[in-house]
């Protein structure tokens, strides 16, 4: 068994003629929390979808637990996905089911466990995210942070080896933000999982991750432990980490001369 749960070699991906990712090389060691960072539209969510098997690489190799994702058929992909969890940006809870039924969903779909055991398992998962008391609420009655935590409980229902997080911090208040960050770290450690976090929240994620990949315009421009990233001399990473307005990513969208647009130029 390889040390790396995920190994990506020279991976490229294009939507038709539009090149989204170029020559990506990425490793995720078992038990680690890996962050993929970058500004909106840099291709980091696409990378996550590739790892989850929702998209297929145009070229290159993508191994998840030794399996080449590009060569899986539907049945093989579904088999692999039973050992994967994914946390969507806004939770993506099933709105027609209660919190309990949401967490029980996979257990009911994929196992023949008796209802009494499903109940115990669901309560254990909900307890881990601190929401056992909310089991009979509907998703519409939850706050954004609570919905995210229920979704996390749902994604660990089958004790996966890998969890993918799509912007887990987007739109959360500072308390929920810290809670979610801690939960991701604690779950990864206690359940022996591997976590891939796609995010643009620098402060929160640098606190809890083991390794960071920086993506810009489809290529990995920087990588390293959080401390290295914080002190990175690269202008793009520096601008991103410190949230500066101007740098390699300009404040202004390309436009003709301002004076000309206002009709002030001669």
């Amino acid at each position, binding site marked *: 068994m390889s040390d790396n749960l995920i190994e990506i070699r020279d991976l490229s991906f294009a939507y038709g003629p539009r090149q989204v990712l170029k020559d990506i090389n990425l490793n995720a060691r078992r038990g680690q929390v890996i962050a993929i960072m970058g500004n909106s539209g840099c291709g980091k969510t696409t990378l996550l979808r590739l790892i*989850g098997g*929702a998209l297929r690489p145009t070229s290159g190799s993508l191994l998840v637990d030794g399996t080449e994702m590009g060569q899986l058929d539907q049945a093989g*992909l*579904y*088999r692999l*996905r*039973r050992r*994967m*969890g*994914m946390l*969507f*940006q*806004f939770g*993506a*809870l*099933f*709105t*027609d089911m209660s919190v309990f039924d949401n967490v029980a*969903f*996979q257990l009911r*779909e*994929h196992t023949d466990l008796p209802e009494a055991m499903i109940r115990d398992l669901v309560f254990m998962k909900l307890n881990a995210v601190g929401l056992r008391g909310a089991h009979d609420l509907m998703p519409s009655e939850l706050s954004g942070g609570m919905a995210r935590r229920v979704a996390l409980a749902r994604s660990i229902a089958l004790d996966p080896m890998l969890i993918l997080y799509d912007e887990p911090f987007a739109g959360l208040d500072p308390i929920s933000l810290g809670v979610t960050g801690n939960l991701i770290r604690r779950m990864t450690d206690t359940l022996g999982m591997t976590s891939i976090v796609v995010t643009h929240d620098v402060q929160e994620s640098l606190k809890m991750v083991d390794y960071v990949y920086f993506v810009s315009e489809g290529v990995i421009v920087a990588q390293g432990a959080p401390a290295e990233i914080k002190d990175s001399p690269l202008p793009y990473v520096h601008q991103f980490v410190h949230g500066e307005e101007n740098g390699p990513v300009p404040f202004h969208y390309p436009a003709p001369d301002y004076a000309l647009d206002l009709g002030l130029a001669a």
Partner: protein
Amino acid sequence: MIDTLLATLRRIGGRTVDRVWRMGVAARFFLLVLLHSGPSFRRFHLIVREIFTAGVLSLIIILVSGLFVGMVLGLQGYETLQTYGAEESLGVLVSLSLVRELGPVVAALLFASRAGSAITAEIGLMKATEQIAAMEMMAVDPIARVVAPRFWGAVISMPLLAALFSAMGVVGGYLVGVVLIGVDEGSFWSQMQAAVDFQEDILNGVIKSVVFGIAITIIALFEGYDAPPTAEGVSRATTRTVVTSSLAILGLDFVLTAFMFRGV
């Protein structure tokens, strides 16, 4: 001049190709739903749930509309039949119009706007909020888990609703014709009993409503599944469901009627 003509032709051609292509995609979707229907029959409670949302929740509008359509038929029919002294045949007129045409067609039109639009909006929003993608990531096929139960729930509900619509219509015709106007009760019922044929009239009506049910549901499901995941996309898809399925019902009705009742 030639250029604009060519451009217009090209646009019409492009649109036609688009439509035909979409119909092809919808047909493949239909096939996929049928292929993935097995699991929902093994877990029949999923279908029962959809029969409740599509069928039971449509009951009020179907029953009330049926009653009023029957009452109007009673009034109008009496007016016309009276001219020929044939008001005793009111029962026949009411029941045949309902069982053959109005029952299946009007119930289907109501079903398309009540249940069809709800199905499209629900599936479209499930897609927009990534619930469908989440299901796929959990290794559960959304066609088998979400789409197929809704399909069968609605297809089973449709003929039952059409039958209830016709039954309420007959009651409405009876109320107006017999109770209100005073047509002879004996001839109202006995002529109806003598004229309505089970195979020829009732069974054909049921076949119609099954066909309409399949058409409405597959249109509603496909539009929802195919909707762009935005507020505008879902609202357009919902509108398209009602428009397309209404036209499909009326078109199919003509074709089916032409096959079933050829004046023999």
